[in-house]
């Protein structure tokens, strides 16, 4: 075959990268032949995105790593912007399209930026050229439509056409035959029936002469489109297989890798055990929960029934009093919607929520109602939705309870400040500056402040979305302890949604798994391990519709 003769489109040798003590990549080799579609698989944190970022020049690899493009050595690290000059093009999950611009403008954006500011634009010929480009890839879009108004799949196709066109121009310019299109999670938010249209486009791109690196969690998609798969685990390549020779079950085993994950879990446990021995911190947490007052011992259970929205199809579950229920699901599974729907931050189509003796219609829930019912939401986006960055720490922490400190026409600011200072002490927020703007604190401390803000409002149901995202190990440990203490001491019901499955195995009493908007599995007790949760989340992908 000619593939064997021609040099591979891209070759990576011995790529390693460490962040602190964490080895994200460890001696990774990867080869993508011309005209080949290679799937790159692995769990969150397995090193996929680090590898892509090294290819695109965002990160420097450690010395010893080499990259060959079209058989020619490329010095690493790649200078920014260089990737497109050597025939590499990237499409990320967010697509990097300007929603307010037209299809035509988005398509030609790259040329605009490289072509200098004062060159006259002939819109008529641009139009004609763009039409020809879209026709070549058999993508039929209205060039004058606003990109934001396109269906998600068409937006993805537009982004891919743009990237493929860059590669085609590169091949024409350099006379080379190699070029690689890297697709990072392109199918995440796409509806089932539309994915095929994306695949047709990818096949056209390959026929045009590019190789494709396809990164995805969606095993069905990977099996449908790739020739070969490479599986990463803990920063190492653990398997390279021809796609046709391997079934989904075997892929799951390769990705999850029981033995390695078990070792990982053991390490995680040791962190948490160490923190429980920190008696002073435990004492402070206990004080914090006791100060929370009258919710203690109330012990209401929560029943959620038939929640439906665009991504969730009829999800039901219960949370017992004092139980921490984990919700696992890949991005796009709908799990990430749940906390916002149950708080009324986003509108569900229908569903019911029973909290103690009260029954609420999830479809009509508003944040005001939820706050009144003492439902707490700790959102993932803490800088926009969680804490007001410009206000001081104390104002943020006491935001929900300030009404209780306004009596006889006097706002008891001193009481609020005292309350906030106690919370800062008990929730270990550092530095303990009540008057500093919230935006000046580190991610971990902001997250602890956000927990404090909600926990001092005595919630009956605590909804958490990615509560340890971008948080250092110490703060993560503290947050686990706060939530566990809230659940056990105050009998609070907790819903914990994250894509970090190891974390769910660590803190939750029970984990439900959502795939494609449906509750597909429940794991308890012995079954709670990172690998079991991952396998459950991966396995049912696209089987249930």
């Amino acid at each position: 075959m000619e593939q064997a003769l021609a040099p591979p489109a891209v070759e990576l040798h011995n790529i390693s990268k460490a962040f602190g003590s964490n080895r994200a990549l460890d001696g990774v080799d990867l080869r993508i032949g011309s005209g080949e579609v290679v799937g790159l698989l692995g769990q969150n944190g397995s090193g996929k995105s680090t590898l892509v970022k090294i290819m695109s020049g965002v990160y420097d690899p450690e010395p010893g790593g080499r990259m060959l493009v079209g058989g020619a050595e490329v010095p690493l690290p790649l200078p920014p912007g260089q990737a497109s000059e050597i025939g590499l093009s990237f499409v990320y999950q967010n697509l990097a399209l300007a929603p307010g611009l037209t299809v035509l403008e988005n398509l030609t954006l790259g040329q605009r930026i490289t072509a200098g500011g004062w060159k006259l634009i002939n819109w008529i010929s641009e139009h004609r050229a763009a039409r020809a480009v879209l026709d070549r890839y058999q993508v039929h879009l209205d060039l004058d439509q606003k990109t934001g108004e396109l269906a998600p799949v068409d937006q993805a196709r537009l982004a891919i056409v743009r990237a493929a066109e860059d590669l085609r121009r590169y091949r024409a310019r350099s006379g080379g035959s190699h070029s690689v299109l890297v697709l990072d999670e392109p199918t995440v938010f796409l509806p089932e029936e539309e994915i095929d249209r994306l695949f047709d486009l990818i096949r056209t791109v390959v026929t045009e002469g590019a190789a494709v690196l396809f990164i995805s969690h969606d095993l069905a998609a990977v099996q449908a489109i790739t020739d070969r798969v490479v599986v990463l685990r803990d920063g190492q390549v653990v398997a390279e297989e021809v796609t046709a020779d391997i079934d989904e079950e075997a892929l799951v085993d390769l990705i999850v890798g029981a033995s390695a994950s078990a070792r990982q879990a053991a390490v995680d446990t040791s962190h948490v055990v160490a923190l429980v021995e920190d008696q002073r911190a435990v004492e402070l947490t206990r004080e914090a929960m006791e100060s929370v007052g009258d919710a203690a011992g109330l012990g209401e259970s929560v029943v959620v029934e038939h929640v439906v929205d665009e991504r969730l199809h009829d999800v039901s579950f219960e949370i017992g009093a004092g139980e921490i229920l984990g919700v696992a699901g890949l991005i796009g599974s709908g799990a990430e919607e749940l906390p916002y729907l149950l708080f009324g931050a986003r509108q569900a189509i229908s569903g019911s929520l029973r909290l103690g003796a009260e029954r609420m219609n999830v479809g009509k829930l508003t944040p005001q109602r939820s706050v009144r019912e003492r439902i707490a939401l700790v959102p993932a986006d803490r800088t926009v939705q969680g804490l007001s960055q410009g206000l001081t720490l104390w104002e943020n922490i006491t935001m929900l309870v300030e009404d209780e400190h306004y009596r006889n026409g006097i706002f008891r600011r001193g009481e609020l400040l005292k309350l906030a200072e106690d919370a800062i002490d008990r929730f270990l927020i550092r530095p303990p500056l009540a008057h500093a703007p919230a935006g000046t604190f580190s991610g971990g401390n902001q997250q602890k402040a956000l927990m404090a803000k909600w926990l001092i409002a005595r919630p009956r149901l605590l909804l958490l979305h990615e509560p340890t995202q971008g948080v250092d190990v110490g703060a993560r440990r503290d947050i686990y302890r706060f939530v566990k203490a809230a659940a056990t001491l105050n009998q609070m019901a907790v819903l914990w949604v994250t894509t970090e499955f190891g974390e769910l195995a660590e803190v939750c009493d029970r984990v439900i798994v959502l795939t494609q908007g449906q509750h597909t599995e429940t794991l308890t007790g012995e079954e709670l391990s990172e690998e079991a949760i991952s396998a459950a989340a991966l396995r049912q992908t696209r089987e249930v519709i």
Partner: protein
Amino acid sequence: MSAPNKAAPAEADHQEQRAATLPRPTLARRLGLQRYAIIIVFIAMFIAFALAVPSTFLSIGNLSNILGGQAVLFILVMAVMLPTIMGDFVDLSLGSSLGLSAMTLAVLNVQHHTNVAVACLAGVGAALVVGLVNVFFVVYFDNDPFIVTLGTMTIVQGVTYIISGSNSIGIVSTSLSNWIFTYNFLSIPLEFYYGLAIFLVIWYVLSFTPVGQKALVLGQSREVARLTGVRVNKMRSWGFILGAGVAGLAGIAYAGTNGTIDPTAGGDLILPAFAAVFLGVTAIKPGRINPLGAFIAVYFLATGTAGFQLLGTQSYIQQIFYGAALVAAITIPKANRERFFKKRRTAEAR
């Protein structure tokens, strides 16, 4: 702050370091300086004028002029602050609401001989209608307040021309001008005290009640406010309506002060009012729209203007002074010397 969690020394160290890198003393010093900068400059300016033209500047007449002469602007500043503090930057229509209120009052009182109190209520009512229209288009339809109020501002100006028949209308009942302008207490016209009363109410609500605190959160980050259970749209609506109502009151003060109402009334006041609000942001509570800061800013600008007039400068100096004070006040706290030099150095290195 000795770290309580001694069992994790590495982590504690890490956090201590982070605490050390937070620029606590410099920040505090800078905030302190910034907080009172206007007051310090105010005092310095006052002393300078007092020394330069002692006989006129320190006269009772001049001081009463400074305090009383800007009462209309002062009330309008309070009006501007209400929607602005809730994050709806710029309700441009407030100036023309003032004009509409004054003109409605004048037309009813002068041409239709309506009782002056009823005419005043009608004036405020007309301004409230403008506020409701803004709410409808900005809050209900979720439009950009700048664009909508640019439109309503122009429309209201047109309406003012219509009801006045494009004429100046006067003279409104002397009992109104007496109670606003002629009668005085401690040699200062009563309208100053009306402004002061409005200020005190707004100051109390915004700075000393949970409602004010919620308005502040809403203005700083709407999404946080929403997810904290603040009724975002209701609150914004009240901001526009009350703002328009207070602008209507400013219109009454305007009518009482001037006696004759020109159809363009209020148009030249709105930008100085914004200047005062934003100048006030740099004082007392830096970075936040706050009533006390706005109060100081209005009278800082009024004092400067009066002083320059007494020095015999041209009247356009007032405009230059307003603009320069605003730009200087927001820029000086940012003129970080280190950063400036660092930039220069990197530029030279290239």
